[in-house]
């Protein structure tokens, strides 16, 4: 399995120095990007396409907190199992249901201010969860515990996408 952190010369950790990641990404892209090989032979163009694709994929995975955490846990042999393991604490599920009801109401009333509010609440929740994940993975090395937190973050991520769709419906 690829280690996406290694690709960028970074130490695997949930807390990420975004500037270092971006800099490494650009340094690599400046060597491998297809624009550097527009006039090269087929062999080099193919190698360039493969490398760039791989670098873009790795960047995507590391930039997004959910996929970054999932990748880290996989490196430590823990499968987050989003699809099968959906048993979540009841109070969390209750809160999710309330949030979704609020979202539906805002959509029906075409109220973009409530959507703004929902989104900023969600961002706060996400930030708290991300701190907890960083503590679990980087600090306590509690990977099983982290998997539960990542599943929660995944729920919030889905809600975030639904808010996006709601904005489109409201406009």
């Amino acid at each position, binding site marked *: 399995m690829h280690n996406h952190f290694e690709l960028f010369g970074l130490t695997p950790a949930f807390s990420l120095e975004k500037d270092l990641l971006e800099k490494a990404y650009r*340094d*690599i892209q*400046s060597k491998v990007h297809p624009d550097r090989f*527009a006039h090269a032979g087929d062999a*080099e163009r*193919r190698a360039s*396409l493969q490398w760039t694709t791989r670098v873009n994929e790795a*960047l995507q995975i590391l930039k997004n907190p959910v996929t970054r955490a999932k990748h880290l846990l996989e490196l430590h042999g823990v499968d987050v199992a989003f699809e099968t393991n959906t048993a979540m604490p009841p109070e969390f599920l209750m809160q999710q249901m309330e949030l979704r009801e609020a979202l539906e109401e805002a959509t029906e009333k075409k109220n973009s201010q409530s959507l703004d509010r929902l989104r900023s609440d969600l961002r706060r929740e996400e930030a708290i969860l991300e701190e907890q994940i960083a503590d679990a993975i980087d600090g306590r090395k509690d990977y099983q515990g982290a998997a539960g937190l990542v599943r929660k973050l995944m729920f919030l991520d889905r809600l975030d996408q639904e808010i996006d769709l709601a904005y489109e419906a409201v406009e």
Partner: protein
Amino acid sequence: MALLQISEPGQSPAPHEQRLAVGIDLGTTNSLVATVRNGSATVLPDALGRPLLPSIVRYLPGGKVEVGYPAQARQADDPKNTIVSVKRFMGRGLRDVAHVEAAPYDFVDAPGMVQIRTVAGVKSPVEVSSEILRVLRERAELSLQGTLSGAVITVPAYFDDAQRQATKDAGKLAGLNVLRLLNEPTAAAIAYGLDNAAEGIYAVYDLGGGTFDLSILKLSKGVFEVVATSGDSMLGGDDFDQRLFCWVVEEAKLPPLGPRDMRLLQVKSREAKEALTFHSESRINARLSSGEFVDLAIDTETFCRITQTLVHRTLGPMRKALRDAGLTPDEVKGVVMVGGATRMPQIQRAVAEFFRRDPLNNLDPDKVVAVGAAMQADVLAGNKPQGEDWLLLDVIPLSLGIETMGGLTEKIIPRNSTIPAARAQEFTTFKDGQTGMSFHVVQGERELVSDCRSLARFELKGIPPMAAGAARVRVTFQVDADGLLSVSAKENSTGVESSISVKPSYGLADADIERMLRESFQHAKEDVHSRALAEQRVEGQRLLEATRSALQADKNLLRADEAAAIEKAMAGLESLLSGKDHRAIKRAADALNHATEDFAARRMDEGVRRALAGRKIGSL
């Protein structure tokens, strides 16, 4: 890693070392070609000094074709054979085309892409566009006195895969080596960014003749990064003309019009629209074929009222792009205006209101895209030394996915992914002993397949019979730097592999392109053999140069026998270059490409290793 530039101090590389490369803005209304000469980008005018080429093609009996101003002059007399705004039909089926009823053409509903019956036969939009591109190529070759080494052709950022593929095919058909398809707002951002040393978050508002794009970019030194893009590929200045035309028909209580009168009033409407940018009132007068005289006055207030919904339609994509980028309007440092339609005062006002700042109009909105494309072509041609070039990171505008059970779309590559991008997904059989699977590739954001654009269908056969759910079929989507998709599928649970590559169904097969090329050369009285020979020689020379400098830089990555094999393939190609057999040159070039495969991969790995080593030292 840098190529060796051997020249005396103060002496620039000899002119013949510069490759001739152009940027082409293939617009709905007008097209342009530009190039970089002595370090600055200029639009190349025609023999009469006119920079724009109206994107109008007229077919005459006997295969003669008029392009540009001569075709424009005759459009009202010969509307059925004079194709305007062909870009609206690129990669589109008849059902996708807006205002079909108002277009005076004899449409033929062909599978994949609509076609038009003319006096010179049935023409696809790809062929019509290639006529425009051919005129621009000839203009450039005459002006630069040489065969073009390559061209960058711009497309609306919101063009889907079908529209992009059609544009690339048109380029090939016009005899161009298409170095890259470049998104129009990105091209504009390059021109603006370099001209103004701009850094920070910028938006590009590009309202052309037939398309609307809104792109958000992060500019920093040496990097142009598209963060998000949105738009409407069925909205442009043409629609404003159309609104005005409908208003005229209504106000003057005109009966249904014939093609000639329709085209006449459309042209008059466009002129009135353009006049309203500078005057508070404008007149539309025309004598119809019935003898009736139309004479109407329209003021800016009325024009704004009847086009208000069109202006409003650009707001949605602006909000969406900002949301996708995770930004608010205040975080945008400047809004670059592109496209002739942005001259309309109501557009300027709407943009200023939305972003709460005056839009940037300091570049000619008609030329900025071609100029940016020329700058990018110069980089892709390798004419710029390292350090003076830049990195361009663009995205796909629409999600790519596959149809699953129940007519639902499963997104494989989400919109605004940086390209090149690839993503794989596993699928399995749902019946015992199933030996085939069919796939339907779609593009769009909607959940239902029927609301998305269908790109291709293909089947994977020869799966060994297994229990339901046991087969593992891995479907891989690969989007290249042009934003073009290829899909492959592979069954590998039993070690039995079968794979297939699809080219989306609307695309022309390479054989079609070759046939059309041959036909077009017959019309142009150009010798197809000598052109092919010239192209293969340029290509072969290019490959030799690239391999030579690669060896010079990294020969240490090769074993002696490997280096010898490459040198042998080089010698083989070199000995054929002066000959007359273009196929033999092609074969030798292919052999050299094949011989350098491992070398290329190793060089790339080495490049990455060095890049990272540099970073670590730098950050200590």
